[in-house]
């Protein structure tokens, strides 16, 4: 450490080399002050700051034109200077209450020494030092706490043998000794008696802290620059909250002085003293538990020093940890399947506001002059020019000519955003690294950002009004970094489960499913499909008259691609195998299990074999192929999709009727008390469990019948089979039966006394009255069924609305707790101080982003080696 400056006497503002935290002494407060504040008035009749008032111009300037009386500099140059007030009576500082209490309890009230016998003082010292070596400063602090806890119980001073009385605290600021109040003056004299040598016990360092400084006798007045007043439109001045509070303090302090000097009765002085204590306490912290917060006349609490710093909205989280950026933009997003996966559609009006700085060189000067000529109004133009001396000039009709004239290498032109520029695209909450990805700009008409629907998944975006942010990196380094580390293709494989986060969705899956299922196309059709999907190389299309859908699909696959996998839907041959040999899809259909996001092993393998750039290109082609084929094919989900043949209807009716009578059976058994009870359950619980099981079974069985009898060639069935949207359950709910509505895992039992609705009898436990919906959506629900559906619907809505902020906070806590954990080269996971958290990362040492769904496919590795 550099030569220590005596901080008790000197107020320093210099270059920071090291920082020492201490408590300001009265001498220091006096020394750093430039003015003594004696009056609560702010301005005189002319509106000029009063000398010795809170806005004294010796404390710095906040008005343009005035000069600081202390340093002589103008507004913005003068950083402000402290003042001070002399307090008529000492006052406790709210932030030091706890320390003062500890000090009082652990030292002798007579001689001030710590209540540790002389011969043991050294032992405590070594104990603290040892704790520091083991547990750092934190450990020392814990040890201090332990010692203090023990000293509280000593009741006789080992030095002067004085009896120690019990000291307690009356919140927030009063100290009591045997239930009698001790004034801050007395507290202060006791603290003064504590010798420097004993301070180590409390973790205080002599020279930086003296206990008595924790009781204020003088108070620093912060410079006006940290509490500037605002001039309202009406010409009225509105003062800062701190100034208001300081005004209260000065006013009461003056009154206290006057009353003491006039020899006023003790009660009046006491009252004023307490009031002064209140004002000073709320000046530091307006959120003290037992104190009513000081308020504006409007009733809104004042924002004093602690509130300025603390919590969200405070200086740290709001101003220091939270930053705002230029060259960014935010609007609503909408889908555009025709742009590339790694592109983002930017509206022209946005592109004309955002800019990229380009340095003028010999070689691009003519090119850049064109931009300047077009100016800010004509796209693509330029908005600003920065001269080599750093002066920024706006391009306007008046300045344009002159700027063109003086433009030469070394100038920087802020050119408007163009196709191919690099941008970072982001959607909150940014829970992921995939929540911020780099896209290439594509300037489009319209007023929304456009993104390829396949990248919705990593952003968790949809188009029901979502907004997203766009940032334009301004330096060459930033652009390079964004492109190399953050571009969409680099984020393809999720580090969470090692599969592609981007895949085909919705139409694209349906389209590819239909395409790979269809047996024959004429050559003309095939070429047309491929062409419309943006593929112009037909050399890999077999030279035949009749071409199968699989052959069309194979065109987009790499020529030497080998793959063996499983599909979700059955293929023609009735199994689920997918086989790709030499880049030809030989067997199987393409559906969600191969192409979907977070599942597609096919995509994972393409990525592994051909790298991210090829993978994204191929994925883009597959996606487009699917959507173009689907739009050629035509696709409808009709009401008749869920038509069932009469046979199926009777079967389902029978299943449901059987289930209902079975339930009634159980209920009568229950009433007779003959039900066989499950271990650990009451009879009622057993009944409920059995009924739930029964009804679930009934619904599943009807679901199976629906699946058996539904026409496979309808839009709804195709979506369910290919996995592009909806499943067998949704089909069954539409066609046959919605099923049991459950509230917190139980059948609906709420509502009236012993019944759910007034149309039922009391104690009715039948499936009908407890929320089993026996109809399908197509046939329509009965009124009470509809109501049960509404109950669960509302409940789940409430649930999501309440759960989102909770899980957000949980995530925040986790992220903060784990943010500096890191996998070292020896595969151990350690925190910032090198402590081991896991001996092998994930217990198996596998880098998930290099695996398939967290596992290593050994067979494939062997196959590849062969």
């Amino acid at each position, binding site marked *: 450490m550099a030569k220590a400056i005596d901080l008790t006497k000197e107020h320093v503002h210099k270059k920071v080399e090291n920082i020492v935290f201490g408590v300001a002494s009265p001498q220091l407060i006096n020394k750093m002050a430039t003015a003594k504040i004696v009056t609560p008035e702010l301005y005189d009749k002319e509106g000029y700051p009063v000398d010795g008032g809170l806005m004294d111009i010796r404390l710095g300037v906040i008005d343009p034109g005035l000069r600081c009386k202390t340093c002589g500099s103008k507004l913005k140059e003068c950083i402000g200077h402290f003042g001070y007030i002399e307090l008529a009576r000492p006052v406790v500082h709210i932030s030091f209450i706890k320390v003062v209490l500890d000090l009082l309890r652990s030292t002798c009230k007579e001689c001030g020494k710590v209540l540790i016998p002389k011969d043991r003082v050294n032992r405590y010292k070594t104990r603290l030092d040892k704790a520091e070596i083991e547990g750092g400063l934190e450990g020392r602090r814990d040890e201090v706490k332990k010692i203090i806890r023990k000293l509280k119980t000593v009741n006789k001073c080992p030095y002067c043998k004085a009896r120690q009385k019990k000291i307690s605290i009356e919140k927030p600021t009063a100290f009591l000794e045997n239930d009698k109040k001790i004034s801050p003056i007395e507290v202060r004299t006791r603290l003064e008696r504590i010798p420097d040598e004993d301070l180590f016990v409390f973790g205080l360092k002599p020279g930086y802290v003296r206990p008595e400084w924790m009781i204020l006798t003088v108070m620093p007045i912060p410079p006006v620059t940290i509490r500037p007043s605002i001039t309202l439109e009406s010409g009225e001045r509105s003062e800062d909250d701190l100034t208001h509070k300081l005004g209260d303090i000065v006013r009461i302090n003056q009154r206290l002085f006057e009353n003491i000097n006039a020899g006023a009765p003790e009660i009046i002085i006491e009252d004023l003293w307490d009031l002064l204590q209140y004002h000073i306490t709320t000046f530091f912290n307006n959120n003290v538990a037992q104190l009513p917060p000081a308020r504006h006349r409007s009733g809104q609490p004042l924002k004093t020093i602690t509130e300025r710093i603390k919590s969200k909205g405070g200086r740290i989280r709001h101003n220091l940890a939270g930053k705002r950026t230029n060259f960014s933009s935010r609007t609503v997003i909408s889908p555009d399947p025709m742009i590339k996966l790694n592109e983002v559609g930017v509206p022209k009006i946005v592109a004309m506001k955002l800019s990229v700085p380009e340095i003028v060189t010999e070689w691009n000067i003519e090119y850049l002059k064109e931009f300047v000529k077009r100016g800010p109004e004509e796209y693509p133009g330029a908005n600003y020019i920065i001269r080599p001396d750093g002066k920024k000039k706006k391009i306007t009709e008046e300045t344009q000519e002159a700027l063109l004239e003086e433009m030469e290498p070394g100038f920087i032109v802020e050119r408007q955003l163009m196709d191919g520029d690099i941008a970072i695209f982001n959607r909150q909450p940014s829970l992921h690294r995939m929540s911020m990805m780099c896209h290439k700009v594509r300037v489009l008409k319209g007023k929304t950002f456009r993104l390829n629907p396949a990248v919705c998944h990593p952003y968790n975006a949809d188009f029901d009004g979502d907004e997203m942010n766009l940032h334009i990196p301004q330096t060459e380094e930033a652009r390079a970094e964004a492109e190399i580390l953050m571009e969409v293709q680099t984020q393809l494989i999720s580090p969470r489960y090692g599969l592609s986060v981007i895949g085909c969705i919705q139409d694209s899956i349906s389209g590819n499913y239909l395409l790979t299922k269809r047996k024959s196309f004429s050559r003309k059709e095939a070429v047309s499909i491929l062409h419309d999907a943006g593929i112009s190389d037909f050399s890999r299309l077999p030279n035949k008259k009749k071409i199968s859908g699989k052959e069309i699909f194979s065109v987009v696959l790499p020529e030497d691609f080998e793959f063996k996998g499983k599909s979700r839907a059955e293929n023609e041959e009735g199994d689920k195998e997918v086989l790709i040999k030499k880049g030809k899809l030989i067997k199987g259909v393409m559906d969600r299990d191969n192409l979907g996001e977070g599942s597609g092993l096919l995509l994972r393998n393409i990525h592994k074999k051909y790298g991210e750039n090829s993978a994204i290109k191929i994925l883009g082609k597959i996606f487009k192929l699917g959507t173009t084929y689907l739009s050629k094919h035509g696709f409808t989900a009709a009401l008749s999709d869920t038509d069932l043949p009469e046979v199926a209807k009777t079967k389902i009716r029978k299943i449901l009727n059987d289930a209902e009578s079975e339930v009634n059976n159980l209920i009568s058994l229950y009433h007779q008390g003959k039900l066989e009870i499950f271990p650990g359950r009451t009879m009622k619980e057993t009944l409920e469990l059995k009924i739930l099981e029964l009804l679930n079974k009934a619904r599943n069985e009807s679901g199976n019948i629906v699946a058996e009898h539904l026409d496979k060639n309808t839009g709804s069935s195709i979506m369910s089979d290919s996995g592009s949207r909806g499943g067998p359950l949704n089909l069954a709910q539409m066609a046959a039966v919605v099923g049991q509505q459950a509230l917190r895992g139980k059948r609906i039992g709420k509502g009236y006394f012993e019944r759910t609705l007034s149309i039922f009898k009391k104690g009715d436990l039948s499936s009908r009255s407890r929320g089993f919906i026996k109809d399908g959506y197509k046939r329509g629900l009965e009124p009470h069924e509809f109501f049960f559906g509404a109950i669960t619907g509302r409940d789940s809505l409430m649930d999501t609305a309440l759960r989102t902020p909770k899980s957000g906070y949980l995530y925040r806590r986790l992220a903060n707790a784990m943010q500096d954990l890191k996998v070292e080269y*020896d595969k151990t996971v350690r925190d910032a101080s090198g402590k081991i958290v896991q001996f092998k990362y994930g217990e*198996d040492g596998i880098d998930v982003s290099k695996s398939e769904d967290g596992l290593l496919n050994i067979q494939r590795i062997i196959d590849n080696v062969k």
Partner: protein
Amino acid sequence: MAKKKNKSNVKNHVLIPKHEKLSEKEKKTMLEKYNVSLKELPKITKEDPAIESLNVKEGDIIKITRKSETAGKAVFYRGVISE
């Protein structure tokens, strides 16, 4: 510590993984392997019921072999501390 007779031994419970004490030699190689000091290891108190019967003292290292969802079996080490 006197053992109570009727107290069931937690070591036999299915959910308690295997705890072993490392010998001085094993301890040395382990610390060298991970290049750590005792302080940087996770901790376990001397009084922990699972190591009651191992007769441990402060500064020993306990090897814990757990079932792992990802790896089948995973080894952890903990340094013994007193309260």
